């Protein structure tokens, strides 16, 4: 990535996102056009999403998350609830960017 292009990206991006600019020439590849999003950042984000949602076998209680009890209580009190009754197995139920696949009962 040329210096001018990098300086230009710095101008375009808001301050808290400027750290996401990468220099593709480090990897010996041709620079991609437009915004360049750091691959490592995405990979870490996805790993976080996958690992933080380990679902227990017989319930929806989540284990393995880094949330402590106080934080959980605070979030519970500050948040709302969505109750979905009689949802059939196989249905994909999502909220915002998260999708829950309802599992079959006999699994």
């Amino acid at each position, binding site marked *: 990535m040329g210096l001018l292009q990098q300086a230009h990206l710095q101008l375009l991006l808001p301050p808290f996102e400027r750290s996401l600019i990468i220099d593709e020439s480090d990897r010996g590849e041709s620079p991609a056009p437009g915004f360049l999003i750091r691959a490592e950042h995405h990979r870490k984000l996805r790993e976080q999403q996958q690992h933080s949602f380990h679902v227990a076998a017989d319930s929806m209680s989540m284990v393995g998350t880094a949330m402590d009890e106080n934080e959980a209580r605070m979030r519970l*009190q500050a948040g709302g*609830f969505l109750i979905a009754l009689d949802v059939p197995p196989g249905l*994909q139920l999502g909220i915002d960017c998260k999708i829950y696949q309802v599992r079959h009962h006999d699994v």
Partner: protein
Amino acid sequence: MTSDASPQPQPVLHLLIIMFLLHDTQSQTGPNFKGIKMIPPGLHLLHYGSSEADRQGMFLNASAGSIDVLRWDPTAEDLTRGDATLPEGSLASLASAVLGGQLDSSLGPYPAEEAGMWINLSNCITQSVLSRCGVQPGAKISPGTDAGDSEQTVTAAADTTAQSTSTDSEQTVTAAADTTAQSTSTATTSAAVVPYFADLARVARFSTMSAPHQTLSSSSSSSSSSAVQSEPAAVTHAHMDRLGQVQELVQRRFNGSWKELLGELQLAFVLFLLLSSLSAFKQWQQLTAALCRCETVAESDAGFYKSYIRVLHAQLKLVPEDFFATELSKKNFLVSSLSAMFQVRIAVLCMNLGV
């Protein structure tokens, strides 16, 4: 001049490719799944379906302690509001059970680490944006098709009505007056559309943009009553710098509020991303292409430009990292749009540096 914002020949392909990243955020539930808890206060989009091809959605307004109850109707094979289907009294007992923690083990927590992402994708979507597009919180949203239920259909109907009732003397009005009448009738008709069956899913009705040369003639003719013949240079400039086109849309459709425009842009993106709506994709594509080609907006309205860059950046974060490199997707509309934006910014930067 960069390529125009005309629809790409393979929008469905782009849609499938961009949706790739959401596959990573799927989780399987247990058999006791009864819903979701810890939903942060604010607007959220609930979406459901047996596959990506038949998704429906619904906006929900969550607040501290709010409980939205939905129930699967096996006859209609659809989720319905619990207050309409549950027996009297059971809703209150269900609410007390939820607040008392008795259903805690059956409720999955809202993913806290994705809350920031959702806020960045939806922070400009307000109640007025949803009302204007006909998808108020609680109303079911269908992805729809490309052809139906858009503002264009309503506009065409309004135009037909206006033409059939016009008299001979009215036919002598100028093109500008026609445009004004059309936009007025469009706004009136859009506001008057009320769904007869409130429970049926509806399709978001997005704004339509006028062509750049049309906005040029309408703005020029305000000072002249004769038919407008725009200068070729002005027409070329209008196609190069889309600021006039976007400003016309903001004035006509959003009462001068740039934030409402960003709200509709975000709404189009999330409906495209989460409901696989082709009409929403085309709206997002059209608005993005126009906004990236607003050459002087950074100088004329810096606050809006910064907000737009933040919105665009949040959306591009969901694009696969090889989206601009793989053979199938590297010739997408984002390349030409972002290239146009970079060219302008680099030119401005060079001018400021005196290069």
